[in-house]
């Protein structure tokens, strides 16, 4: 692992800590777990180095937990991080089963790359899936959580800031004063990175838009890159 990669990993974990601690009270520090050849897991870890829970409070009472994991590889230069997988789980303290999960997996082949799963019951939905099962379709009527609800693919998936805002605004967990500013800062950073990546995937489209806005855009001498098929085609 290069020095640049190690620094980038530490910075990424420190940035996550700063954002989350500016939004949710009593949030622990994120750390980077590293194994060679360089695979990296960024999360909160307990004393046994298992993935730890972050506490969630309502009026100061610890009522729920959440987990966040970021599984990271490095690009071919070895200097830049690439998030390959990320996971968000919300848990009530009264139960070990998750309430909801959000996951991103860049290598996903069957389910949507980015998706929510709801650990809930809905009789009518199970009844509906029962028809599909009876028709020989590969569904699991007993488990609504087996359904993956797609959310924008790799490039347009929610960022950590969206998950944090969901916890504060939708679930009404306690927040730290000034939390909105931290979320807006994090979101602007994340979406700028995603916009740059989309621009690389869609160069001809971006050039057309820029020309329409009055820019002068000259294509590279060796031709314009083909649109990123992964971006265009995967759910």
């Amino acid at each position, binding site marked *: 692992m290069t020095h640049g990669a190690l620094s980038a*990993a*530490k910075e990424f974990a420190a940035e996550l800590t700063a954002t989350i601690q500016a939004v949710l009270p009593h949030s622990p520090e994120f*750390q*980077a777990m*590293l194994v060679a050849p360089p*695979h990296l897991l960024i*999360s909160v870890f307990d004393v046994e180095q*298992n993935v730890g829970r972050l506490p969630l409070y309502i009026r100061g009472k610890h009522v729920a937990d959440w987990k966040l994991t970021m599984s990271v590889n490095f690009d071919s230069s070895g200097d830049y991080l690439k998030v390959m997988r990320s996971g968000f789980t919300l848990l009530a303290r009264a*139960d070990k089963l998750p309430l909801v999960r959000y996951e991103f997996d860049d290598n996903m082949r069957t389910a949507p790359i980015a998706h929510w799963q709801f650990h809930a019951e809905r009789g009518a939905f199970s009844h509906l899936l029962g028809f599909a099962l009876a028709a020989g379709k590969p569904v699991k009527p007993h*488990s609504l959580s087996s359904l993956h609800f797609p959310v924008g693919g790799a490039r347009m998936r929610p960022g950590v800031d969206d998950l944090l805002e969901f916890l504060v605004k939708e679930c009404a967990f306690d927040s730290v004063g000034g939390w909105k500013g931290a979320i807006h800062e994090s979101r602007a950073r994340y979406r700028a990175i995603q916009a740059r990546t989309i621009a690389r995937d869609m160069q001809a489209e971006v050039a057309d838009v820029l020309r329409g806005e009055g820019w002068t855009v000259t294509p590279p001498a060796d031709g314009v890159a083909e649109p990123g098929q992964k971006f265009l085609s995967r759910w």
Partner: protein
Amino acid sequence: MAPVIEVTRDELIARRDGILSRLGLTLDEYLRRAADSELSGDEWDVRDDLDSIAFLLNEQHFVD
């Protein structure tokens, strides 16, 4: 800067063996139960650990 925890592949494998041993399951049995949406609360509780260990070991059979 955040701290870095360095672990070896052997440590990760030993940790996974310990987790599965406490559950009384083999990895294949766990993955099958996960694929069939039949994980219990205790089994869900270690899901992120098993999933993360698989990633760190560069294995492809993650828990869905």
